[in-house]
């Protein structure tokens, strides 16, 4: 992707260090175009969540720090902003594991998402109705405590809550975690609709590579804190290495588990 005028988020060669010693990201660069869905793929501990938190500035609360590189949102440096200021600018994170406010009702959860908005109750009410049209299930559960609804409904609540901030970019961390395949599909379908109809861009961290590549337009593969490969989602899905390591489909002959692991240890991404 070239640097055309409509880049929404651009991360340039960032390095992230936790507790002053643990180097987690070793120079990650990526771009999210206006209106795009970009997938950030990789195994556990590859640095997906850290990348998202570096953008949303939730890192600092975990004693992490962006020590090199820059992050720009709409061409403006955002690495020194507080999470709250960033939400006001239109980028919001949906954290891994949903993190609903358990003791608040579903509707109250949604309303907390509008905390930073200054455009009046009328507009907030409209957003609430909009969220309910995308997630009709939440309307049925609006008076239930969020701690008691199902995992899928919690994920919907978390996404709906982020929508209430009226964002142009949602950093969506592992939305498929712990959900049944059918629900995963349902949630990704809604994400795609939000993208199409409301123009919300997504940066999506996922371990479920198959689904993520199906809905994303572009993908980055992260390994050990580095981007090892990137490309159009469709071409990534066709790539032999991606197929083998992340989609569990091997090109030539089927390998048994032990051989795959062994192969993987030797293999380096040189592309």
């Amino acid at each position, binding site marked *: 992707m070239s640097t055309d005028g409509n880049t929404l988020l651009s991360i340039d060669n960032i390095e992230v260090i936790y507790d002053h010693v643990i180097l987690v990201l070793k120079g990650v660069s990526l771009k999210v175009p206006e209106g795009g869905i970009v997938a950030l793929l990789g195994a556990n501990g590859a640095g997906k969540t850290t990348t998202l938190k570096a953008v949303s500035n*939730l890192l600092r609360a975990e004693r992490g720090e962006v020590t090199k590189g820059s992050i720009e949102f709409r061409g403006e440096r955002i690495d020194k902003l507080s999470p709250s200021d960033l*939400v006001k600018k239109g980028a919001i994170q949906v*954290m891994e594991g949903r*993190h*609903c406010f358990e003791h*608040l009702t579903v509707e109250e959860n949604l309303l*907390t998402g509008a905390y930073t908005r200054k455009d009046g109750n009328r507009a907030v009410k409209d957003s609430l109705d909009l969220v309910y049209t995308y997630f009709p299930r939440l309307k049925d559960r609006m008076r239930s405590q969020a701690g008691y609804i199902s995992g899928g409904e919690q994920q919907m609540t978390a996404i709906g809550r982020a929508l209430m*901030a009226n964002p142009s970019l949602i950093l969506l961390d592992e939305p498929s975690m712990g959900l049944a395949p059918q629900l995963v599909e349902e949630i990704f379908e809604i994400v795609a609709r939000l993208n199409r109809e409301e123009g919300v861009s997504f940066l999506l961290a996922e371990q479920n590579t198959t689904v993520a590549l199906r809905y994303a337009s572009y993908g980055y593969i992260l390994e050990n804190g580095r981007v090892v490969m990137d490309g159009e989602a469709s071409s990534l899905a066709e790539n032999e290495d991606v197929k083998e390591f992340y989609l569990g489909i091997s090109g030539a002959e089927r390998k048994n588990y032990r051989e795959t692991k062994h192969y993987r240890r030797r293999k380096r991404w040189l592309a």
Partner: protein
Amino acid sequence: MLEFAFQEPMFALEVIIGGLLSGIMYSLVALGFVLIFKASGIFNFAQGALVLFAALTFVKMLEFGVNFWLAIVITLAIMMVLALSIERVVLRPLVNQPLIILFMATIGLNFLIEGLAQGIWGAEVHSLDLGIPEEPLEGLMDAVGISITYFELASAGIAAAMVFGLSIFFNKTRVGRALRAVADDHQAAMSVGIPLQHIWALTWAAAGIVALVAGMLWGAKIGVQFSLALLALKALPVLILGGFDSVAGAIVGGLIIGALEKFSEVFIGPYVGGAIENWFPYVFATVFLLFRPQGLFGQKIIERV
């Protein structure tokens, strides 16, 4: 003696009413704890010290010859500054730390504020007159023979007003909702753009205001002195009974503990040699804890299986 309670229902009633009214006073202290617990999940050990600090500051202002209302305003301002400094110096660096660490920090704060209060304003006992008469309402005395003082009535009124205000604030306002959100999940609250710093500063300022009200009323009752800081201990059984995070619980808990204290002293005390008023509530609260750890009105701990 228990039979005596049934033989003399009016006397028993008077004992219970007296207890309820002193219970309201405990509720006032407990409210401060509830505020901070609700907004941050921290049991604020320093609440008693805040009460002492507020009361001492207020009474000193009066002694300097400041007008009553102006003294309230100045004390409130000082409590705000104190709240902001606590947030900036103690709480902000501890964001996302386990709650036990925050709790330990409030223990430290407790001693710091106690020392500060006495260091700045001195340690002598001051009397405080709020201008509310300590005489019983004659009408009530004549009609049913029960004595309730104007002061008790005023404290009950103030407590009721505070509960009403706080309930509306927590349940109906944007900021109140944000406070409860922060209490549930600091990180998630940050992620949706709720500024933790503002929320915490606000909560501690609110707790400061509650502390001032409690300090003024208690100060008028027992004098402004160091023992005000120990009121925090009196609030403990109230909180256990009512639930740490419930405004209504603080009030109901206070009423029950107050009534229980007096009732047990008068009617059970003689069997066991008296003076059980001081420890009976704690025993009761401990037993209660075994059956309903979240208190009467506390939030249930949600566990998904």
